């Protein structure tokens, strides 16, 4: 299989449809098909296609163009420091780089995003080699050195065939793309939108005002947001948002605070919200909490239904999911353990480390969580973030949820701090006014949880550190406590 087929089908069956809007530029699927052929023609034998820029029409052209040329597409984070970038470039070369930043290095051929889509075209069929790699993406590395996740054509095609119907978008539909090209959600959005025939409206650098203005101007119907982006849109709204065309908002990429989703649902009652839970290694979404489940949970007085607003939802039909305890046994309902998934879209493979799937094809996500009696998945956090106090496993999430329930608490993170008596103890970094004193915060935790959960250190911060796609940088917080 080859992901280029998605664009080929789109350009043959609906070539006249608008595919991309970016600034003043508009391209049809047919034109995107030509642009991909121009990218493919520039690739020299042995080269990968490396994309190092913000969102631009050259991003989808390069993703499909690499596939047509039969070589992996690699997307690099343009926000990295020069040192980090040089280290990643060395892991990618030789490659045809598409970038407007001033980088040079051994094994790099450099093209500008504008010019790479012009010139000679590569004609002919895309290669169809078994097991060929479509995309290599560096994981965010919030816990250590970034790993290069390998996604094969068969993984990405399984995701698309499992979740999208061809040409299912109406001619009026448009998706607002704000997630950067180096994020799996950015890749997935291009593949899904192309196959569905949905216009992609690109917003290269996100601001809440810019997002709302573009959504209005282009009558956007669909959007994907990470939680911090949705929070900023809510904050900037002043209590009302005029987005009559908007129908669907999907969100993911980090934990969505309850207050944020409730505020967004109140502001946009006509919009369908979907929580999409997935990882780079699983070719994007593996579980969904759909619009009906959102509305039911929002309206319910039953605590077991109400809490589903914080759920990752249920596995999509093409995915199997199990929560297992430390002994490897499948957990019962409400029992917390490690989340395992299986399905054709799950790659679970890193460059240089090989496949991490077990002999039966299961992949350990390293997320902790549990499933309720009706099969809804609740993610607790990363297994690496668990606080082990005197042999007892403490989930940061439960402490954070309790503290966040305080009206004055804007943001909070619980992390492990070294403790001479217990090995580890609970440290809390918190954003809240000084009028709320430590004793009050400790009492809140004690009253709702157990005394072992009460923080031994509380640190006041102006804001918590997040990366640009809204992932909380716990490592940075841990380091600041250690100093």
């Amino acid at each position, binding site marked *: 299989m080859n992901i280029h087929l998605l664009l080929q*089908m789109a350009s043959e069956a609906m070539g006249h449809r608008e595919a991309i809007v970016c600034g003043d530029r508009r391209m049809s699927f047919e034109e995107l098909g030509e642009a991909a052929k121009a990218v493919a023609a520039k690739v020299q034998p042995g080269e990968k296609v490396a994309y190092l820029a913000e969102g631009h029409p050259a991003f989808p052209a390069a993703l499909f163009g690499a596939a047509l040329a039969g070589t992996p597409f690699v997307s690099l984070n343009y926000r990295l420091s020069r040192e980090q970038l040089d280290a990643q470039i060395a892991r990618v070369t030789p490659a045809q780089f598409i970038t407007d930043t001033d980088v040079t290095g051994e094994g790099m051929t450099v093209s500008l995003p504008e010019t790479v889509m012009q010139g000679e075209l590569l004609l002919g069929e895309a290669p169809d080699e078994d097991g060929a790699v479509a995309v290599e993406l560096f994981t965010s590395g919030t816990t250590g050195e970034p790993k290069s996740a390998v996604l094969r054509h068969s993984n990405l095609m399984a995701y698309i065939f499992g979740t999208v*119907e*061809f*040409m299912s978008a109406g001619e009026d539909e448009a998706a607002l793309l704000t997630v950067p090209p180096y994020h799996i959600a950015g890749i997935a959005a291009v593949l899904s939108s192309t196959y569905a025939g949905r216009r992609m409206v690109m917003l290269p650098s996100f601001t809440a005002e810019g997002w709302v203005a573009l959504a209005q101007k282009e009558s956007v119907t669909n959007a994907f947001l990470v939680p911090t982006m949705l929070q900023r849109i809510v904050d900037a709204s002043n209590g009302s948002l005029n987005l009559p065309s908007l129908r*669907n908002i999907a969100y993911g990429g980090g934990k969505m605070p309850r207050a944020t989703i409730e505020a967004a649902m109140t502001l946009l009652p006509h919009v369908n919200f*979907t929580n*999409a839970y997935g990882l780079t290694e699983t070719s994007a979404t593996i579980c969904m909490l759909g619009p009906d489940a959102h509305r039911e949970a929002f309206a319910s007085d039953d605590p077991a239904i109400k809490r589903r607003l914080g759920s990752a939802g249920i596995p999509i039909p093409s995915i199997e999911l199990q929560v297992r305890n430390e002994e490897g046994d499948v957990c019962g309902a409400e029992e917390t353990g490690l989340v395992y998934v299986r399905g054709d879209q799950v790659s679970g493979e890193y460059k240089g480390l090989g496949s991490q799937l077990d002999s039966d094809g299961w992949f350990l996500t390293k997320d902790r969580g549990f499933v309720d009696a009706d099969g809804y998945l609740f993610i607790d956090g990363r297994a690496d973030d668990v606080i082990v106090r005197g042999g007892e496993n403490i989930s940061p999430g439960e402490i954070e949820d309790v503290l966040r329930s305080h009206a004055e608490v804007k943001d909070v993170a619980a992390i492990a701090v070294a403790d001479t008596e217990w090995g580890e103890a609970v440290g809390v970094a918190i954003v809240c006014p000084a009028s709320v004193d430590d004793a009050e915060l400790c009492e809140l935790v004690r009253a709702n949880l157990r005394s072992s959960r009460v923080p031994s250190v509380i640190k006041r911060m102006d804001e918590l550190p997040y990366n640009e796609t809204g992932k909380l940088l716990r490592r940075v917080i841990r380091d600041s406590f250690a100093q």
Partner: protein
Amino acid sequence: MGQIYKPGTKLSSTVCKTQIMALRVPNEELDITCGGAPMQVGDPAELGTMGGENAGTLVGKRYTDADETMEFLCTRGGEGTIAIEGYVIDIKAAKKLPSSD
């Protein structure tokens, strides 16, 4: 005549523009025809004459047999009808999922 196919294999009609890709296939020899003529790997140099009754194929639709033991994606539509071992395969009803990206 029959052949064993694997997922990802693309077959072209020899009598119309239809092209299909195998998504799920049993590990057994299959006789696959379109418009009454055997389908082949790669497009034919010229199209032959269509036989039998044909309702055509639709690009982007999935086709499956009565027992759903196999599934094909139509990657290019045409006028011929696809049959496997002499039985016509039909469009599989789509499962509607909310848009997640």
